[in-house]
């Protein structure tokens, strides 16, 4: 890997985003819109909003980043720029980490805005540090980015890439403990939810919500989310082939 090339990729992705107002709006404000909608649905019932808010705060960045990343990288594949880059001195790690950095930066903004909104305006009650809450949201977004990069290797059209959303993201949403606490699920489902990264992201959010200090459980949850992100990036690098059929 070469930092010059990695940062060139990051800068280019950000330059493309700057021109694409619709995607920026989707990345930054759609999560806020959805969170506000959630708050409104419960019509000022703080108890329910406090129960559903944190998982949503983990989920929206994850889903939005997953979608945008998988489609963006696929576009790179189908336009031929990926083929050109791989014929150049571009390391696979440079490409993936460059993308992850760019979207990670966007994720930081997104998480900052979403946390500011839910805690500041919508009255989400959080015992722990807002910095940690933001950190959890950023890690979730980076996880979404990494998974999006990974699955884009298995799609050959943007349509196929979008199909990974119900296949990979929705099961995690169902099993992450949002609807039924993970410990109350049938054993098999609990076991499955134990190996899905979003479960740990949601656990981490809940932990920050109820505990003032940084607990060991929280650290473990965050490390698991991070490990899944790094693992997906590494797998993405392995599955990205310079030579294609």
């Amino acid at each position, binding site marked *: 890997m070469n930092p*010059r090339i990695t940062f*060139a990729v990051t800068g*280019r992705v950000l330059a*493309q985003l700057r021109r694409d107002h619709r995607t920026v709006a989707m990345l930054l404000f759609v999560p806020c819109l959805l969170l506000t909608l959630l708050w409104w649905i419960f019509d000022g019932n703080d108890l329910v909003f406090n129960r559903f808010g944190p998982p949503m705060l983990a989920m929206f960045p994850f889903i939005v980043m997953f979608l945008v990343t998988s489609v963006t990288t696929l576009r790179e594949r189908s336009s031929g720029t990926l*083929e050109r880059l791989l014929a150049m001195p571009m390391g696979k790690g440079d490409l993936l980490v460059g993308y992850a950095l760019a979207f990670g930066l966007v994720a930081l903004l997104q998480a900052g805005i979403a946390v500011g909104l839910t805690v500041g305006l919508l009255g989400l009650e959080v015992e722990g540090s807002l910095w940690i809450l933001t950190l959890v949201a950023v890690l979730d977004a980076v996880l979404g980015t990494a998974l999006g990069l990974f699955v884009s290797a298995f799609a050959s059209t943007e349509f196929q890439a979008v199909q990974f959303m119900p296949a990979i993201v929705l099961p995690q949403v169902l099993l992450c403990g949002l609807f039924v606490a993970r410990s109350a699920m049938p054993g098999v489902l609990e076991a499955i939810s134990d190996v899905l990264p979003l479960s740990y992201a949601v656990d981490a959010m809940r932990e920050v919500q109820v505990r003032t200090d940084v607990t060991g459980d929280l650290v473990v949850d965050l490390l698991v989310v991070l490990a899944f992100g790094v693992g997906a990036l590494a797998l993405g690098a392995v599955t990205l082939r310079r030579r*294609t*059929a």
Partner: protein
Amino acid sequence: MVNNSTVDAAIHTEDLRVERGGRAVLRGLSFDVPRGQVTGLLGPSGCGKSTLMRAIVGVQARCTGVVEVLGQSAGSAALRHRVGYVTQAPSVYPDLSIRQNLRFFAAVLGADQGDVDDAIAKVDLVDYADDLVSRLSGGQEARVSLAVALLGEPELLVLDEPTVGLDPVLRRDLWALFHRLADSGVTVLVSSHVMDEADRCERLLLMRDGVIIADDTPQLLRSSTGADDIEGAFLTLVDLDREASR
């Protein structure tokens, strides 16, 4: 061992075979492309030109046989700085300006940012440098893609149908550019499915259905087949081949 003709050639292949989608697309190609010349790779659509170019730049899977480029095995890491490649589709970012595109690729190549302006000038797009690529015509977009390949002073240019769909004046200008580059020592391999571009090349590889059916200069091809033009020569060669296999 260094002192033989295969090392002097810019591209050297021996019995190159490629399978795509279960079909043999390249069926045993052995040829040399000399350095410092403009070589045309001509053949009808679907004959395997793009596949051959992908094998030369090292992005084609399932190649067997030998492909050596500038004395090294095709696709080796050291070659990625020395070979400029234009894919058939204009592989640039439509949502960035011409200059932003070139700056990015220059950074990837480690090329001088001064190269960016040179490359834009060479393809005659100075007046459009800050326009978004998506707002350009197809021909202009193809020239942006070509400009990217000129960055970083490559020793070999592999250009997949760079002149298709361009107006005649532009085509003439680009061929003049290819010859200027060749005069400065760059090897240029250009593909086209339009036979009337043949006379602009110093050397020709005629391809049909995954095999090279002729490897010669345009003049010698015409005189050896007795045809008036390269299209005639192509047809004569195909007919001869049919008779031979009957």
